[in-house]
C-alpha cells in the first residue's frame, strides 16, 4: 500500500518500477484500480474525518481549522492520525478489507488499516474507502473510453447577463477553462444566487468565482484545438448535473482526460 501510494504521488517509484517490485496480488489490484475498477465505498469523507479526529483526540473546531489549511478532507483525515505502528498492509489487503466491509464494520476496519500506515498511504486508503479515488498518475494506462464520456469540472467564470458558466479542469494547481456552457438545470436559480454571493473579480460582464462548485459535463468527444487556452475542445458538451457536495480538488486532471481520449 505504501509503495502504491508513493507511485501515485510520483515518487519514488514509477509505475513500471512499482509493478516490477509488487507482489502478484498487488499487481492485479493495481491494474484493476488503474483501469477504473473501485473497491466498495464504505464511508463518506465527513465520517472518515470524524473517526480520524476521534483517534487523534482533536476537537472538531481544530479539525475544521486543519481542513481550511489543507483543503482536502481525505488528506486532512490522514494527516491527523498518529504515527503508524506494526506491519503495514499491502494494497491487496486494503482492497480486500474494504470489499468485505459493511457499514457496521466500517469504523473498525478503517481504524485497523490507519494505525499501520503513514499519511500518504492513508490518504489513498481514504480516497478508496470513500469512493473518491482518482487516478492521478499521468501516464497510467486507462481503458479507452470510446467516443465521448463524462467528466467532473469546476466552475471558474459566470456571466452577469446570461446563465452561461465556464468550467475548468485542473492542470497542476491551476484550473484551466475547458468549456463555456449554458446552465439549464432545475437548480439554476440556486447556482446563480451562489454566483452573485461569491464573485471574486469582475471583468466587464464576466464574473470570476472561486473554483469550488463542481458539475458533471457530458461530451461526444475531445479534440485538440491550439486556439483554446487548454489546448483541447469538448464536442457537444453539456452540463448534466450539479454536485454541490463534491470536493473540487478531487477532479480529473486535464492531462488524464486527454490521455483517456488518446490525445
Amino acid at each position: 500500500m505504501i509503495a502504491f501510494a508513493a507511485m501515485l504521488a510520483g515518487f519514488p517509484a514509477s509505475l513500471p518500477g512499482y509493478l516490477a517490485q509488487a507482489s502478484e496480488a498487488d499487481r492485479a489490484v493495481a491494474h484493476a484500480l488503474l483501469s477504473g475498477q473501485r473497491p466498495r465505498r464504505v464511508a463518506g469523507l465527513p465520517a472518515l474525518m470524524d473517526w480520524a479526529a476521534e483517534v487523534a483526540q482533536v476537537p472538531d473546531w481544530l479539525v475544521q481549522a486543519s481542513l481550511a489549511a489543507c483543503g482536502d478532507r481525505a488528506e486532512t483525515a490522514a494527516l491527523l492520525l498518529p504515527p503508524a505502528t506494526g506491519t503495514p498492509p499491502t494494497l491487496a489487503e486494503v482492497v480486500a478489507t474494504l470489499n468485505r466491509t459493511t457499514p457496521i464494520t466500517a469504523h473498525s476496519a478503517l481504524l485497523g488499516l490507519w494505525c499501520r500506515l503513514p499519511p500518504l498511504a492513508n490518504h489513498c486508503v481514504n480516497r478508496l474507502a470513500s469512493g473518491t479515488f482518482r487516478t492521478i498518475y499521468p501516464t497510467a494506462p486507462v481503458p479507452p473510453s470510446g467516443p465521448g464520456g463524462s467528466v467532473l469540472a469546476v466552475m471558474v467564470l459566470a456571466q452577469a447577463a446570461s446563465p452561461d458558466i465556464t468550467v475548468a479542469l485542473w492542470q497542476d494547481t491551476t484550473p484551466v477553462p475547458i468549456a463555456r456552457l449554458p446552465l439549464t438545470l432545475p437548480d439554476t436559480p440556486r447556482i446563480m444566487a451562489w454566483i452573485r454571493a461569491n464573485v471574486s473579480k469582475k471583468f466587464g460582464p464576466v464574473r470570476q468565482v472561486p473554483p469550488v462548485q463542481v458539475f458533471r459535463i457530458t461530451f461526444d468527444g475531445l479534440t485538440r484545438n491550439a486556439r483554446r487556452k487548454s489546448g483541447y475542445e469538448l464536442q457537444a458538451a453539456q452540463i448534466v448535473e450539479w454536485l454541490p457536495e463534491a470536493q473540487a480538488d478531487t477532479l480529473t486532471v486535464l492531462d488524464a482526460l486527454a490521455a483517456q481520449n488518446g490525445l
Partner: protein
Amino acid sequence: MRFRAGLPVFWAENPLPGGRFMGYAVGMAHDPILTFSQKGIYCPDGDFFIDPTHAVGRALVTHGHSDHARRGSDSYLCTDAALPVIRHRLGRITAEGIAYGERRQIGSVTVSFHPAGHVPGSAQIRVERAGEVWVVSGDYKVADDGFCEAFAPVACDTFITECTFGLPIFQWRPDAQVLADIAAWWAQNASEGRVSVLAAYSFGKAQRLIAGIPPQGPIFAHGAVQDVTDVLRDQGYPLGPTFRVDGAVPRDALVIAPPNVLNGDWAADLGPVSVGFASGWMALGARRRGVGAAFTLSDHADWPGLLQAVRETGATRVFATHGYVEPFRRWLEGAGYDAGIVR
C-alpha cells in the same frame, strides 16, 4: 519615543466589557516585562527590541533569517554562533556576540540566549526581572537534527512561541527517513543521467542537507547557498566540501539552490535535471503539486513539538506568533493556559 512603542500586553489582549482595558491597576503588580508594538517585541526596562520588524535603537536577534535579522538598527546583540551569518547578510553593522547561557544585565532586566535548534546559532531569548521570567522562542524545532545546536527548554512564567506549523496535521517523520528518501532520489536520478537539483532555503536548511545526506557524488551549491556554507564551515560546523555552480555540473551531482532561483532559468545550463524541494510545507498535497520530488523536512517544530516545548517551559501564560496563531491560541486556552496572540 520608544517608550510609546506599544501597549502593555494586558491592555492589548484582555479587553473588558464596555471597552475598558485591564491595566496596571487591575491584577498586575508591575508593568509587563515585554510589550508588543508595531516595531516588534519590546522590553521597556531594558529599552531593547527582540527581532524588530523596523530599524530601532538596540536589537536582540534570535537568528540570521531575514525576517528576524533586519538592517537599520543602531546595534545588535545575538549569539556568537549567529554573528558571522548576520554580519554576512547585513553588512556593516554594530553588533556584539554573546555565548549561549551567558547572563547580561541590560537596564533593570537580565537577558540570556539559549539554543532553539532552528538553524546554526539560533536562540531563544530569556528575559528576567526580579525573579519573573519571559522567554521569546524565535523560530525553533525540538528534534535534534544532529547539525545545529539542539533545542534546550527554558523554564519561564510567560512563553512567546512561534507556531508556523501550529495545526495537528503537521507531524514530522524522523530526519533519517527523509534524508534516506532524498539519497534514493539522488541515486535514481544519477542512474538515469539527470542532475538532482534540490531547492532549500540558503541558510539553515541547505547546510542541514549538505551535512545530513549520505554522500554519493559531488555536492554543488548556488552562489547564495555556497556563500553562507563557507561562512558556517569557517565557524567549524561539520560541512563537507561543496562546489560553487559555474556552468555545467556532473550528472551524478546534487545541486542545492534557493527555491526562488528555480522559478527562473538558472537551472537551464545544468543539462537534464530532476528537481526536488525540501520544506515542511511539502506535508500538504496542495503544496506538492508542480514542485517535482517533495521532501517534508522542516526547521520548525511540528504540532507535537510545539506542545512539548510549551509543556517543558512550565509557563502558565503563552503568546502565539508567526503562523496558525488563532487555532494554536485556542488550543492552549482549552489546555488551561492563559493564552494570547502577539499583535
